[in-house]
């Protein structure tokens, strides 16, 4: 009976095992990368909104402080989406007849709220609290990016758990003074390593093992 396999088949067999492992690894890596990509996370994808509201115009050009509209960002879990009344505070006078604002005026007249599309959508199992971050020196732009450059809103980060943990493991990297909290062009100073530690002491930032406990965000 002739031999079915030559000696070279051994090499092929070994090689094929290696190739399969590599392919599996590649597949896994691709899957993970895909999962992190804006294709899945929707990062840097501007969302359509019912009203063409521009943060670039309001926060950038007009220089309105974040907290004028997002009033509860320092006190509660949610930053607070402005009520129609907040819009009308100015727009009953300014651009009072602009067709772009018809939806706002209609909401004001009819009492029906405006239905915005959520941009920063955390999984429901994560319980995020704005107030504790803002009070402890994590500024708006750290998570939301330079909002004053965004005509329509997009998220600049994946909002995935690994991204949260980057800071929860090393909060010193992003801490800033309270006066800079809403500053859009804040960049970590050269001595952030020093400064961050000092701020962490000042703010009584909890130890890393508390910040990285599951219970800090999940319940």
């Amino acid at each position: 009976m002739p031999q079915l396999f030559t000696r070279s088949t051994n090499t092929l067999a070994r090689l094929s095992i290696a190739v399969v492992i590599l392919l599996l690894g590649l597949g896994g890596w691709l899957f993970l990368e895909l999962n992190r990509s804006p294709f899945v996370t929707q990062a840097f994808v501007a969302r359509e909104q019912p009203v063409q509201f521009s943060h670039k115009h309001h926060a950038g050009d007009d220089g309105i402080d974040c907290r004028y509209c997002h009033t509860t960002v320092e006190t509660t879990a949610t930053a607070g989406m402005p009520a129609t009344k907040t819009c009308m505070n100015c727009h009953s006078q300014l651009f009072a007849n602009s067709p772009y604002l018809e939806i706002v005026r209609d909401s004001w007249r009819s009492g029906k709220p405006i239905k915005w599309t959520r941009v920063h959508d955390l999984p429901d199992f994560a319980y995020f609290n704005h107030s504790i971050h803002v009070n402890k020196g994590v500024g708006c732009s750290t998570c939301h990016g330079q909002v004053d450059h965004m005509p329509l809103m997009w998220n600049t980060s994946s909002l995935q758990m690994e991204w949260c943990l980057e800071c929860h493991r090393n909060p010193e990297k992003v801490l800033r003074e309270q006066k800079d909290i809403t500053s859009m062009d804040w960049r970590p100073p050269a001595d952030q390593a020093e400064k961050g530690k000092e701020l962490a002491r000042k703010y009584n930032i909890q130890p890393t093992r508390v910040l990285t406990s599951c219970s800090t965000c999940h319940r």
Partner: protein
Amino acid sequence: MSHRDHHDDIAPIRENIRKGINKNGKKEFWRSLEELADTERFREFLHREFPAVNPSEADPSWLDPVGRRNFLKLMSASLAFAGLTACTNQPKEHIVPYVKTPDGLVPGKPQFYATAMPLGGVASGLLVESHEGRPTKIEGNPSHPASLGGTTVYEQASILNLYDPDRSQTPLKLGNPSTWGEFLNELNTYLNGAPEKQIEGQRAKQGAGLRILTETITSPTFADQMNKVKAAFPQMKWHVYEPASRDGARVGAQMAFGQPVNTVYQFDKADVVLSLDADFLTNGPGSVRYSRDFINRRRLTGGSNEMNRLYVVESAMTTTGAKADHRLPMRASDVEAFARAVASAVGASGAPPASLSGDAAKFAEAVAKDLKAHNGKSIVIAGEHQPASVHAIAHAINAALGAPGATLYYTDPIEINPVDQIASIKDLVNDLNAGKVELLVIIGANPVYNAPVFEGGQTGQTFLDAMKKSPMRVQMGLFNDETAANCQWHVSETHYLEGWSDARAYDGAVSIIQPLIQPLYNSKSPHELLAAMLDQGGAASHDIVRDYWRTQPQLSGNFDQNWKQSLHDGLIANTALPSKTFGLKSDLNASIKPATPGKYEIVFRVDPSVHDGRFSNNSWLQELPKPITKITWDNFVFISQNTADEIQLNPNAEPHKGAAKMIRLVNEGLHPLEMPVWVQPGHPDNTVTVYLGYGRERAGNVGNGHGFNTYAIRNVNTPFIAAGNVRLEKAEGEYRLASTQEHFNIDASGIDVRAYIPERDDLIDRHIIRTATLEEYKKAPEAIKHRGHTPGEETTIYPPWNYKDAETVDGRDAPLYNWGMAIDMNACTGCNACVVACQSENNTATVGKEMVFRGRVMHWLRIDTYFRGGTANPQVFFQPMMCQHCENAPCETVCPVNAAVHDAEGLNLQVYNRCVGTRYCANNCPWKVRRFNYLLYGDWDTPSLKLARNPEVTVRSRGVMEKCTFCLQRIIAGKIEAEKQNRFVQDGEIQTACQSACPTEAIIFGDIGAKSNPVGQPPQTRVAKLKAEPRNYQMLAELNTRPRASYLAAITNPNPELEGADHAKSGEKHG
């Protein structure tokens, strides 16, 4: 399930059961008769965390038609595709802000409003949590005298009633949807007449044909409106009826003082308490306050060695009896003779003496002696269902002991119309039968279901028969219930969280009932209905209540300011009724007619879960294990072993609740009723007790068809105690009762498993329950702690828990807490309020009777009930049991996916998103506190139920393990608030849901050490102080898991004179 049906086998076992010992002759504490008998079902539940249910026992509708092979095929296919679901984006979500944010509302921050819930007309003060305008959680109002922060199960569960999708949603005319306006037109026709329809108006007849039927009312506004209705219709009659009528107290006061009187007890001033069949700790007005006051006198914390003493004579095992230092089981109709014996022994005037024999005589003698020795420091309280004479005698005893003014005081009645309610509804039925009633208006009552059977015919007359004789019937109620279905008009009523009203508390203090939400449906409040009868059909309940109080002196002056203050406080100042003195009538003796007991008797009590049936459609309450029996979803017949034997029930079989025997209850002259039997240790002989509130036909999807309608065997002349013509007969068939008493057995300690202690090379008893008498405790306080075995720090391969702030980075002063809990078993009254509070706070699902039967109940917190002694009169101990948050948690080491983990502050966490449902953790938990979602138990679709959920807690789905988190959401909220202010969390700032609901402060949560307890300093927090008490012990400490929850032993204060007369010793005597 095998039954040992031979008499030879079973006889010795049954003999042991009577003595409260197992077949090995050992057993101090036991949980069920099955445990003593060591049945197969008990062993299954003991040894397996997830007991298998014999298919022959299961409800056939639950048997899966899909075979195992097919199931596996389907599962493998689903598994193969499961990974793909990760590759999707999250669905688009919207943010919908307000148009104009309401004043004071901060989105994301819950608000609390003060209000009150009336039950049986009597208010209990509440603070209700509201998220963006929807009430989600009930808390007690700490500044309300009836609550002091505590609540009952009814108040906790009432939030679910608000969102009940089966509630009546619109006015109905002959069962068809109609409108309020149309109803007003028709009402107007009947009040003012319509000659073209040949309807003579009631106004013209001065209301001679008008009858109004309500439940007990204490609302001053309602009273004011009713006076106006009476003025408009002078000949109209107002009848009052509800099943738990408290007639005995009302008529008893009439007998004793010649007028209706409200008694307010002050248990905080009493050293000796005698309960004459009164379940005052969990039932009736003021029970929450009474529990707190009573327990405060036996706390034994902070070095106190003082304790009050409670004697209970009772006709069924209640939680009050369970807390008794001496308990005497006695038939309800014998209590009167006992009361007279005590009365004559203490020298009370007006009660004819009685002769007792045996245990009762000795008991009465000792009690009387103890009462006399504590003149002015004692209370005698009679049970709600006891006849008027017992209440009258209790008044006489209290008078003789100098109690009025010292430990109790009298006021005018808090009810508006304090009538004998049974007489009142009898009167109504007579008028109906005589054809005198032309327009019957029923407000909030459901008499077609819950009225007793009246005289007439072979088997009595039902209320429905009589009611149909009124040509026009109107009912207002929360549900389209049995009465609504038989009235021409039904008007949907507002829930107390939807409409304005007011009500008095047990001491008369008035609370404004402030709604938290606009009516969900087209509902109206009773005030609006009465206004309609006064031709003010458009009046809103807010204006009616406010306009009434505008005229009252208590809020005069700056009315708007005072009104606001009253709403804020949840209480109108200076409205508690003043104390009054009433003289005992001299002819009391003549009016007391001794009871005439028969061979057997039936006692009717309101159900501890669904009350008189008004909470039938509340799944939290239906699934709430009733105190002592732990039965869910059903009512049943309490019977003693002796009486069960006498009527040949179950004579040769082991106790087995999976197949409860049936009994036929015959109350002569009424239709007999067949019901399942529950042999209750501690129940007196020759009497049975049944709960009201079951057997509903039109309660809703949850309540229909559960249990048996015991109103059908309730004779109007003997509504509470049917003695005399009563027969008990064995009936055919068996019935499945779903009791959680046999679930989650922690240990068979004393049966055959004891803990092996390597250091000692010995087996020790585990001492799950630790108790001592006050004398023993005083002699050797530390003995309790040393009863078990706590291994040393080094006997573990795990590093010890780091209590210090070692991780404080760079000298940062970061807070680090060590959360823990102390549970005082001496204070726990087993009232269940914590169980419902936990369910409400943590979005816990209910599972239904079949799943309960299989041991799959989802409660994170349960109250384990242990008995000690013979079955004739055992002692009872309550042990609230939830996740113990072990430092060396056994659940964590076995989880293959790291879903059970620890956090930095010592909490044992369950990460739902990691959990794959292996259930290893639950298998490895010695406390059996982990719960697995076998199915999607929660209702995720019904819109109104979504409103009831706590937005701060994840709603769990199928296939996930869950358990107590120590209310993690409250801990995080408290910590965030503190950290924002750069301070530590204050002691007491964070309260778990169970803690805040507890009427007696039995559960205390907090930081057990570290920052608040520097080395060498005494512990500062309340929980740390409790843990330093000598009574404190860790359960199953010998397992070395180092639980963060610990228990404080129960201490009893027995009277040396009654040594051996009851409790533990009585078993041997009767056995």
